[in-house]
């Protein structure tokens, strides 16, 4: 569903239902934008939240929009995937920290339900070790610095060097980078050959500037 050649901007939404509706209304209608239902958003509104996001965004860009459900699945892989696929998500995430059995189950179940699988490598020291053990590659690998980590511990860095290594070894997989927040970070992300840049903070903190921030970031995708 995602094009290998194209770059994408993924925006995560974590505010309340009405705020998010207002923010999506003013986003520029671009199919380069991926909408993410953030983990707190899902835990707050459940399937209903995902369906609402999909409806709003599809209406806005006038074709089916790409919605990521940031499940951060840790157990019961298939049960959770079924639920979000039913709600209309186009992709779901699973933690790289989860037991290998869960990740395998998750990827299989995503295939069965016709959605993309994303494995989130937050707090995983060596993503390669996890990837090697998998039966099947996920569609997207997310390199991720947690929000709480960022806030409390500045010296940890996103492992940009991993992007080339993963792409060199596994070829077809897409790389998404989460945890950078400024336009500078996003440029760096694309420069290092990642396919998707995930941002949320600037939108979370000033929802009234949503349209302008999104346009600024979209300009970076060439």
């Amino acid at each position: 569903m995602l094009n290998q050649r194209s770059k994408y901007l993924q925006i995560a939404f974590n505010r309340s239902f009405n705020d998010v509706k207002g923010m999506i209304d003013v986003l520029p209608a671009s199919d380069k934008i991926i909408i993410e239902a953030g983990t707190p958003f899902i835990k707050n509104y459940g399937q209903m939240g995902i369906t609402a996001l999909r409806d709003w965004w599809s209406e806005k860009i006038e074709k089916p929009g790409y919605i990521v459900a940031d499940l951060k699945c840790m157990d019961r892989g298939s049960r959770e995937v079924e639920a979000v696929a039913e709600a209309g998500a186009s992709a779901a995430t699973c933690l790289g920290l989860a037991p290998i059995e869960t990740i395998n189950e998750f990827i299989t179940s995503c295939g069965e339900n016709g959605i993309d699988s994303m494995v989130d490598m937050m707090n995983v020291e060596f993503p390669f070790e996890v990837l090697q053990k998998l039966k099947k590659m996920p569609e997207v690998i997310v390199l991720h610095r947690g929000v709480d980590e960022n806030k409390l511990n500045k010296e940890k860095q996103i492992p940009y060097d991993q992007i080339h290594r993963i792409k060199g070894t596994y070829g077809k997989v897409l790389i998404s980078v989460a945890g950078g927040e400024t336009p500078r970070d996003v440029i760096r992300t694309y420069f290092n050959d990642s396919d998707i840049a995930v941002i949320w903070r600037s939108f979370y903190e000033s929802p009234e500037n949503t349209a302008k921030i999104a346009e600024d970031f979209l300009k970076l995708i060439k």
Partner: protein
Amino acid sequence: MEKKKNNYVGLIVLAIFIAFSINPIFGLVGVFAVIFWLKKNPEYLTSYLSKIKTLNEENPSGETIDVFSLENTVLAEKNIQPSAFNDFFSQTKIRLKKRKKYLHIALNSTLEEASEIISLLPSSDRILIEAGTPLIKIYGARAVSQIKNMAPAGTYIVADNKCADLAEREVEIMANAGANAATCLGVAPIETIDSFIEACQKFNIDSIIDMMNVESALAVLKKLKTLPDIVMLHRGVDESELSKEKQIPLYQIKQIKGNYDVLVAVAGGDDIREVQRAIFNDADIVVVWKNFYQSSGDTAQLAESFLKEIG
């Protein structure tokens, strides 16, 4: 034991009557004292409510004791929990007592099934009820508040949100939905776990660290700024189904309790043998869930035999 409690209720009502007849101010003080005491120990209200329910079934003409209980009886009959009381009691933290054993029932499939299981469970303050991760991800925070409404007043509700990031936001959502405890992953970044425990203290709920897929729980605990209230040793469902040889490290229970002042929960499985093993190894809380091939009645039966087991 049950009979004794009934006598207490009679005595309290009589005492308040006498106090009122001496001096209305005395009476009011007495009433406030009772309310305050109930607020501290909501489990007594629960057992009282269920007693009234059975009383009413035996004697439909209604032997009512005072207005306070009458109102509750009506609500109990309709199987609605008094929401005002729930709000009132949810403000106080229910404390789990050390030296007591608890059964923690995880509800994972649908809210309909959850209500079926809850209605079959025996009423006891030793039973904790959990809104499982799939339920939270499907229904959102509503899963927690609805389970709280279905369960008897004063029941300890756990929100299994399995927090991995943005801890404060998640704890806030779960606490507002009425949870008495929330969970955080032991594999999450240490910064997340620290901010999770801090947020739990701020919102006055218990913090549970779920050690699923963590090799050494002690190593994680060592790095934390403050200790959580509960440490949960856990083997995932997918793991259990797909590789049978992985075991719950029961020997870690004593290691953890020997070194830290925390309660230890063991996510066991679905039969009484697992429960017995965990209790025998000194776990404070045993987590069980219903398998899809079991009936809700089996889970209720498991709860009964657990209560018998711990006396």
